[in-house]
């Protein structure tokens, strides 16, 4: 399942790239893309565990850029 989220306060392009790399390494994530310009995050992941995976995604995002919030 693929879902797209808006991101708030994503202020730095390099952080977006770092976030993307970190999210792609997460277990259960098939593909993820963070776009600094459109401030969007798209995640393709296992449907049965989607919420659980998104919690993990939010956690790694906080780690890279604490100000950035995923609107879900």
């Amino acid at each position, binding site marked *: 399942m693929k879902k*797209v989220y808006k991101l708030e306060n994503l*202020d*730095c*392009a*390099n952080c*977006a*790239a770092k976030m*993307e*790399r970190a999210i792609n390494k997460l277990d259960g994530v098939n593909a993820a*893309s963070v*776009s*600094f*310009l*459109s401030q*969007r995050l*798209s995640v393709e992941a296992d449907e049965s565990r989607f919420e659980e995976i998104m919690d993990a995604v939010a956690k790694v995002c*906080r*780690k*890279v850029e*604490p100000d950035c919030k995923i609107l879900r």
Partner: protein
Amino acid sequence: MEKSTGLNKKEKKKLARILIALALFAAVFIADKIVYLGGVFEGPAAWVFPFCLYLAVYLIIGYDVLWRAIRNIAHGQVLDENFLMCLATLGAFSLAIYRGVTMPENIEGFDEACAVLLFYQIGEFFQDYATGKSRKSISALMDIRPDYANLKRNGGVERVAPEEVKAGDIILVNPGERVPLDGIVVKGASSLDTKALTGESLPREIGTGGEIVSGSVNLTSQLEVEVTKEFYDSTVSKILELVESAAEQKSKAENFITKFAKYYTPIVVGVAVLLAVVPGIITSDWSTWIYRALSFLVVSCPCALVISIPLSFFAGIGAASRYGILVKGSNYLEKLNKANIFVFDKTGTLTRGSFAVAKVSPAAGADEEEVLRLAAIAEQDSIHPIAKSIAARYGKPAAGGYTLTNIAGKGISASDSRDTILCGNAKLMAENNIPYAAERDTGTVVYVAKNGVFIGSILIADEVKPEAKEVVGALNGMGCRTVMLTGDNEAIAAKIAKEVGVMEYKASLLPQNKVEEVETMLREKDAKDALCFVGDGINDAPVLMRSDIGIAMGGVGSDAAIEAADIVLMQDDLRGLPLAKRIAKKTMAIVFENIVFSIAVKVAILILSAVGLTNMWVAVFGDVGVAVIAILNAMRVNSKYAAKAKRAAAKA
């Protein structure tokens, strides 16, 4: 007003802080130069006074950077921009203190440490501002999202969100309003501005029964529309979704840059450590080498590249969308620049896909009008495209009162009390022993005879689009190979190919043969070539998907085309093709400039810092100045292509 300055609250606050810090810095700096702050107090602790003043300014401008650095280290993000900047500036402060303690007669260096952070913040501010501004200007191009719909419900009209309207509901669209959902006009007639969708500046007339596309603007009078698609299936949602997600399909250039960024920072930091330690041990001139290493840290952030490359692509996609060209991802823009094999489907792409009378050849003694009049009588009941094209050319209602008889496989005979009209192919003439003048041009020929006398013939052919020749010529001129595929026979294919100027053609292909042909071409091409297939998206989806770049034309309202293609020309106009290629070329040129420029400046500053020819002031320019220049350069993608195309055409 927010609009007048374009700054939001957060940006205004930051600007105020920068201005205050800049003023304070200037005051302290000038005072230092005039009265020499290091000499205000005597003794070994003389450095404390200037240090405290500069530190105060430093904290005003940089407390947030410090705070983020500390927080990110707690999260294990060591090679973070904030941290490296703090390390560099605090390191510079420490060096200045060290020198102040060892050489109290010459106290300096605090100004520099403070200024680096100040300029860093100014640069970051510009960077944010420029990115935000360009983001806004690009999304303004795609500002086709409708805000509301006037829903007819329970005898009244209510203003609701477009999402709430269901298929089958009736909505009202007032003049000046944006059409919120796709539908069919049930009452009223008006003209529509579809510029935001297709780039076409001429208004389109619409009347009862006409299909109306969301995102266009109603210009003259009120329309009642029966909604056929819900908001999420409507054209406007599809387009917005497509353009917004285009940034997710990353190009090779973007992937290269993010990979580069991943290694760049650790390498620069690593070299900085070596630069501080190795010559430090050899020469034991620690402060010089540590200073140079700190300059390295200032240049170690790859942000200029990481922002400017995707921004260039984003601007390119935005610019294309203004001309009704939807590009589904940065990677397709990159590929389109390299595209040098253009394969066209004939029907509906190079030609209009509809039949039209190409030529009327009256026999001696008859005239054109007479030939058409008789043919129109005979064909009046037929719904075949050939009959329709004759009726369209004749332009008047055909005379009635005739008995029409279909002669299968040959044509039609029409008779009344006086005359018998025969209208059909050559076989029909031969069978009735009517001598006729055979038509030599290719196409479908209809022969007309009255009472056993040949009157004339009508040639019906698919019409070539008026711009086809110009576009194919332009592509040939760019050094591209142009190929036409068609299901028509050899003679028709050869004629059309010659007319539009394609280099090669393949005739008599069934739809599955087209896929095979394209696959063969894909196999035979060089690795650096890119094959671009252009079709109308109706029955060539497999070919569109198979080719390197699939381009569908006339996409408004056709979901299949939007799904299958990589690039959609919303307007049924081939001129979008060379235009898209020009936009792709410019985008890639700017991407290349930005990559080379940013890396070159950074490397130059690194080398100059290593040998001690520059100082931190230059280094901070290497970080943020380059980013701002690259962003401004990226915005050049978004210039006016249509005007340029016109000028180029005028010259040619």
